[in-house]
């Protein structure tokens, strides 16, 4: 029975110095779906993403990937996820192509680096050191990583920041193609998304941080 829910999280708790940041979050992420995590600043959005990508250890609760506890299927879970944080994770002295080659060495994908850079609109820039690119262009190199790997689940943290209108459109197309191809996206953003199957999950209820 193919478990359609890629990711299920029940009663997730996280405390930092005894101050509960995430208190009993429960959510599921199904195939072909975009889940938008809402909440004011400091409500634990990024922390939630970091826990789901196993960068942080939760204080309680469990995370299931295709019905299996994460710790049991850690290798193939991590081979199937991609995380895009606030920082673009680029080494500025290296060229765009070199930066992308680290991702492909870890998570081999179908699309070649050159094609990915073209689709991101950086056709001739593959051998330019990243410190010569503008902030927006660096962001696009980071976004090119979405195309290069065939990871199933995308975790995007504020993907639209420092992007122009065209960039935002590009990201939305990528997400569209990704969920049609059987993937899933979980993202945190403040801008409204002009796309359909978007479910929203608000963290305000579960964390103490809110309440102005």
């Amino acid at each position, binding site marked *: 029975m193919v478990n359609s829910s890629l990711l299920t999280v029940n009663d997730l708790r996280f405390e930092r110095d005894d101050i509960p940041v995430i208190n009993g979050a429960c959510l599921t992420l199904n195939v072909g779906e975009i889940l938008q995590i809402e909440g004011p600043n400091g409500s634990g959005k990024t922390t939630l993403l970091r826990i789901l990508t196993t*960068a942080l250890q939760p204080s309680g609760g469990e995370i299931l990937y295709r019905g299996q506890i994460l710790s049991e299927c850690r290798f193939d879970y*991590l081979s199937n996820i991609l995380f895009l944080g606030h*920082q673009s994770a680029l080494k500025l002295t*290296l060229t765009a192509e*070199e930066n992308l080659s680290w991702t492909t060495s870890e998570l081999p994908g179908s699309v070649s680096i050159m094609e990915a850079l073209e689709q991101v609109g950086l056709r001739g820039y593959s051998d330019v050191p990243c410190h010569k690119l503008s902030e927006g262009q660096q962001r696009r190199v980071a976004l090119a990583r979405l195309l290069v790997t065939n990871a199933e689940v995308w975790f995007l943290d504020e993907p639209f920041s420092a992007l122009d209108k065209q960039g935002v459109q590009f990201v939305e197309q990528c997400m569209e193609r990704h969920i049609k191809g059987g993937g899933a996206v979980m993202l945190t953003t403040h801008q409204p998304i002009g796309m359909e199957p978007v479910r929203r999950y608000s963290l305000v209820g579960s964390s103490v941080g809110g309440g102005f």
Partner: protein
Amino acid sequence: MPESNRGFSAYFRRDLLLAYRRRGEVASPIIFFVMVATLIPLGITPEADSLKELAPGTIWVMALLATLLSAEGLFVSDYKDGSLEQLLISPNMLVMPIFGKVTAHWITTGLPLTLASPLIGLMLSLPSVAYLPMMAGLALGTGCLSFLAAIGAALTVSLQKGSLLLTLIVMPLYMPIIIFGSAVMQYSIDGMAWSGPLAILGAMLAVAIALCPLAIAAVLRLITIN
């Protein structure tokens, strides 16, 4: 390529490439090494036979300080631009990329120091019999220094003023290395067989290679992302 090997070679090549792109910076530990070597004759005595007495210990102290100087950048640059976060969630074992990074750090600092050490030997009028043992000892010793400094670098990666703390933490762990390192040279100067202390240095390097990456992986998982 077998699974774990890919993690090692990916980050080993990447860090070498990073160092190559900033070739100027690779020279700084060597310049520091030579500069401090000139302080000793100025500060203590220029005449040869007492310099000969000081040479083994001085060379090792300078090698140690030069490694510490360059150790801080090991993880801080990755932490700041987010690639450390990507490393933490990569499917392969965390130990191999760390092993790759520290080996790359050794090649960019330990190896040049070892190759530059005859120059210092000359300046401190080191007897010619001690040159080979010095380089052998430095080659193994700077390896241990890099691995231990990497633990300190991982512990202080998320701190702003981490470098002073890094020195404070790692210095006590350097004591055995400096003892046996200078003993290798002292034995050779006294005409005794210097393979004994060298073997101990080799053993320390073996233990460091086996245990330090594990400790560093644990530290990076536990502490950085907070």
